[in-house]
């Protein structure tokens, strides 16, 4: 993965004349003082000075996998992104993951036609993020695995952005599971964390959606800086 440098809006002033530098510097100083005072006085935020969110763009470079076998429990082992993003949306403002266009369910809608085309009885085995993921529940890359009882085979699809960029058949002994009735989406799963104080300063690194054989329920697993968190999708 690659991360772009924060945009530096002042970097272009290096070649100007001294007077221009002084002028610009003075202007910058004035603006800084003005906005600083404004923030301090709470003109913009009810009296609480806030930091202007830094703009950061994350470019995931993901090696697109081509699965030959699907064991079924791969989603229990999260593919943590090296670029953690704050769980709390307010703290993630200004951070953009390039190509993070789809939530899990959005990406599912893209991947499932491919799976159905492969086998009409295809059922989902698991989904896991391959790229960075933000509090909006969107990732640049999602890995889908399906199983077909009829074919006794598995199928994988990699969704990058909103496009299936890799797909293929793989060996497996797992043939997928029926989806939950109340399948709340990845943003909702993440939202269940940012309201809890223990996650107030946490970062999110990965996510998966998998079937728990023990309780026969679908689970989300979310990789965070506090650890891996799992929750049931009833």
């Amino acid at each position: 993965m690659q991360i772009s440098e924060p945009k530096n809006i002042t970097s272009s002033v290096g070649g100007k004349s001294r007077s221009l530098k002084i002028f610009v510097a003075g202007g910058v100083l004035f603006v800084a003082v003005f906005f600083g005072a404004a923030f301090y006085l709470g003109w913009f935020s009810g009296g609480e000075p806030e930091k202007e969110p830094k703009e950061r763009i994350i470019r995931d470079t993901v090696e697109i996998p081509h699965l030959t076998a699907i064991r079924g429990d791969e989603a229990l082992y999260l593919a943590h992104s090296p670029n953690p993003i704050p769980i709390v949306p307010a703290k993630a403002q200004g951070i953009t993951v390039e190509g993070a266009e789809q939530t899990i369910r959005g990406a599912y809608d893209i991947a499932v036609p491919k799976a159905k085309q492969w086998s009409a009885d295809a059922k989902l085995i698991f989904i896991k993020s391959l790229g960075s993921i933000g509090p909006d529940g969107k990732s640049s890359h999602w890995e889908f695995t399906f199983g077909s009882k009829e074919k006794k085979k598995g199928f994988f699809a990699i969704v990058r952005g909103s496009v299936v960029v890799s797909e293929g058949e793989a060996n497996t002994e797992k043939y997928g599971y029926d989806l939950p009735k109340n399948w709340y989406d990845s943003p909702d799963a993440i939202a269940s964390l940012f309201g809890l104080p223990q996650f107030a300063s946490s970062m999110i690194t990965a996510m998966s959606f998998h079937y728990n054989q023990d309780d026969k329920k679908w689970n989300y697993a979310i990789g965070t800086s506090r650890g891996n968190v799992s929750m049931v999708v009833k």
Partner: protein
Amino acid sequence: MNVVKRKIFVLCVAVLVILAFSVSHEAMAAITYNSAGALAYSASGGTSVAPAYPASIAAGDLLVLVIGMKPSTANGGSVTTPGGWTPITSLTGAGGYGVTLGADTGNTNVFTFYKVAAGTESGSLTVTIATNGVSWGQIYRLSNATGSWDIAGATGSDIVGNTTVSIAMGTNPGVTAGDYILGAMVIPTDVTTPAQFSVEALTQTGITFGAVTETSEPDSTTGNDIGGVTYRAAVSSGTASAAPTFTATAGGTVTNVRGPGVFIRVRETIVPTVTVSKTAGAKITTRNSGDTSQYAHDTTCTGASTCAAFTLSINTGSDTVTSVKVTETGTVNASNDLSNLTLYYDTDGNWADAGAETQYGTVASFTSEAATVSGSLAVSSGNTYYFYVRFDVKSGTPTYPAGGTGIDFQIAANGDVTVSGGTGISGAPQTLTAAGSTCATTAQICVKPQVTGYTNSTEGGLTYSGGCSGCGARIGPGSAFRHAIVIDGYGFGSDPGLGSRDTATNKVEIAGGATTMLADDGSGNTNVSAWSNTQITIRTDTNITGNADTDFGANFGDSAALRVTAGSQAVASDLPFYIFPQVTSITNCNSGGFPAGAFAREYNAGDAACPNGLTDGQIELNGTRFGSGSSGGWVQLLGCDVTTCTTPSGSVTIDSWSNTLVRVRVPTIIGDSNYTGNIEIQQGAGSNNKRHIYSGTLRVLPRIISNTPANGIVGDTIQILGDHFCQTGTCPVSPNRSSSADNVKFGSTQALDADFLAQTGGPGACNGSGAAWNHGEICVKVPSGTPTGSQPTLVTSNTTYTSNTIVFTRDSTVPSSPASLAQYLDDGVTSISIGGAGTSTVELAANITGSVSVPTKLNVEVKVIGTAFDGIVTATSTSNCTGTCNNTQVTVSGLSNASSYHWRARVINTNTYETSAWVAFGANPAGDGSTDGSPANIDLTVDTVGPSFTTGPCAVSPTASSCDASSPTDIQAQVRWVTDESANEQIAWGTSCPTGQASASATFTALANKQPASPTGSGTTHAQVISGLTAATTYYYMARSVDALSNVSYYPSSANSCNTFTTVAATTRIMKTSEFFIQQATTTSQAQAFPKTFDIFLAESNTSRDNVTFDSIILDISGTARGDGSGDITIAANVNGTGAVSYTLSDPGSDKSVNWHIAHPVSSLNYDCPSCSDTSNTLDVTVTGATAGTVTRAKAIITYHYTP
């Protein structure tokens, strides 16, 4: 009671009832006679008379007009009834005069009229009269409270002119108590005096009249004259049963005092009226929307002052109330939202007395805000009928009034009460007395919203039921975990609109330890998502601003917590609503390879922390409303607390607890075969201790606790102890113990199925019973191919679930180098020092340290000094060593005498022939000695020859120090010799030398005496003094020395060969005993003035002091000591500083003295002699354990002998 008596009794009762009834209907009014207007007279023959109205006429007053007339024609005359007046009675042509008519004579007429005053009358009333000679007229004013009057009259006449006036009226006009009587008499003559009439009186059977007062005496001389009298009287009591009679006394000229009289009975009549009113008691302040059969009054009220009711009363008589129309005048829309108006009545105004409150009529519905109740209630005067209003705070539709609306009831108009008897109705409108409610319209009954129940549509088990303690909701972080609760009830009013459902006017609250309003942020995720008059839907999303978990603070709901406010009115009763905990997610160890989810192992204190600070034996419960601390709360995992799974009553170990986060340890009490189960929490501090079972399942992963042994070699049996090794619930058996799903690895080397050992009769730690792979134990061999070094064990079960790893070291089978090398003589015990001498056969030894269970032996390589090691093993230990074998010895024989050797050792695995490194012995350079080159460092030198006698043996004087020229004495001889090496010594002697012995050794043995008895000593110089010899005798002797290697040498060395010496002739010796006193102590203190120096002089001694021998030396010491009462007294004597000898005395007791006396032997003393150099001795005596003491005497007693 006989029949007659019964009849009498019934009759009496009937009479009483009748009397009571009659009394109850008697006009009990009070009539006041006020005044009379001025008399007026007509003109003679006039056509009118105009009496004046009395003063102060008020409406309702009764005006009575009396006209007295003397007609112009005998027995003629008439009066036209004045407008608005009513004739009462009249009598014309009375007086008994016949047709005579003249001055002061003739019949006269009397006319009477009445009118209920309008109140406007004033001035005079012109009355038209006809055939009038002369008339008088007068108007009287009476008043009562009601303005209702009943008038009747009777007439009569007095036809005899005398002083006794008596007019018997022709009829009884019906006089009874309370009536008032106005009367008059007309006479045809003028009055002779102003008071012609006196003593006016009335009599009537059954009546007692009050005082009869004359009102006036009309008197006119107009025309033919006219006169008369008017009077009045109240009726005090009684009821008339006959016609009345008026009497008076006439004065003056009484001839014509005769004429008609009139008797006017005035009675106050009461117009039957039903009066509508209300009590002072205030209405109930609130009623709940939706409730039925609700009263407008407080049903605990006990009287008219507290019970709100309409009242009806009839002032007289009775009537039947046939309907009552009640109008709702509050802000509520009664036509839509109220129903079943019912009226109850009683007559005491006391609702709560359980009296005879009776429903009146039918149940009525509201139409146009009014409900008319039809019924039939006979009301009678003297009673007040209290009408209570009951109604349903709902309609039949049903619809319900909104909270905050007001209800008020009114009998709006007199016509709203109907009676069958036509009695008038008055008093309306009447509105029930103000309620003083909290509604905006405070006078009205305030409608409160009412919550009747709720349904938790997210978790049905928390739905409300009456008196529930398990109802309420969990609050959830985010929309995925919020609960939706549909609140049912009445009167919530219309939807305030999204974003406005959390105002002071309209809101839903949960009031527990604190009050939390469900926030409506106006978004689609609002926590108040729907609102109607009968249903509100709330949610419990903590992501909604204002409803964060922290906003709930100490609020955990309680038995009365769910509150709806509508129209600024809160429900009267909050419903039970408990806020339950909710575990929404689980955090576990995030070490690499550890599955994300509700997975953990049983806790082990030795576990290292995962990157997130948890260990694999800890999990964190994320959620809401856990309570502020663990007090009162618990977490149970798989139905276990920390000590039991059978009847858990406590908690697993809690590491931390907050309202949203609880960290716990997975208890080790969980059964090894119990793999999955619930995570259950009970709220802690500050809560209602409600519970939640996490919707997911906790799986306990395999844990290895120990490997026994923790190291080994390929093929060793390892007992892996732990738990939860069979994640499918069924443990794998052959041939499935080495699959991808189930296997055991040592490092990366997977044990084969054949490596697993059933524990039945298994070796080592696996000697129990059962299969090789159990839930808590696996017995497996270290698989072939396992590299040496650290190879931690890992159990994989059911493909996904792997254990922790526990250290296992695959030992090397290369033996460890030997240590503690040592060399011994061939006895294996006697150590040969480095470079020391050894025999031709030696034992070379070393410690074999065996950390591996392989057979080993010790190799040694022995080389002659000057020859380098070449790796060729000289000798090997005979027995295999398994494990550690200290002092393993290798026998090396055939070593050459006088040759020096160096050697080294190593350990060899006799299975694999792997060897350790060589370790060189002794002073050779460190390591295997291979760098010695041509070693000069000798480990041992072989010595196989006994010591050589380099000097002697010789027999000399006992005092000689060498083999000098001296000779043995008469009784003693000294045998001396010197060997070339250290050796012990022993001599043998006798008076003859043995013969026939095979060797020197045998010869030595055969000699009669040995000195010492066994060989002693060491060194190269040897001497033995033989005593007790016989003078002038030849003795045969041999010497024997044995070196350290037990090499023996004899001298002479040949068999049957002895050395000889001869003692000299016998010598004379004298014995003596002498005593030498020693200075006594000079003080009695314990600090004795010792040591004392003393001299001994032996005159017989030569200057060499060699002719005197001590036989006995005793120091005789005496003294006293005073006991201290504590422990023994010790006397210590020390001669010449050779060492104190202590003598112990028993303590005689405190301050008690004891004399002591000791005989202290010594072996020698210094002594002087003639021409000798001076010498002396010391005696030191100390006394301890005494408070005081002294040495009183000391002396040396010496016995010795000398050679003169």
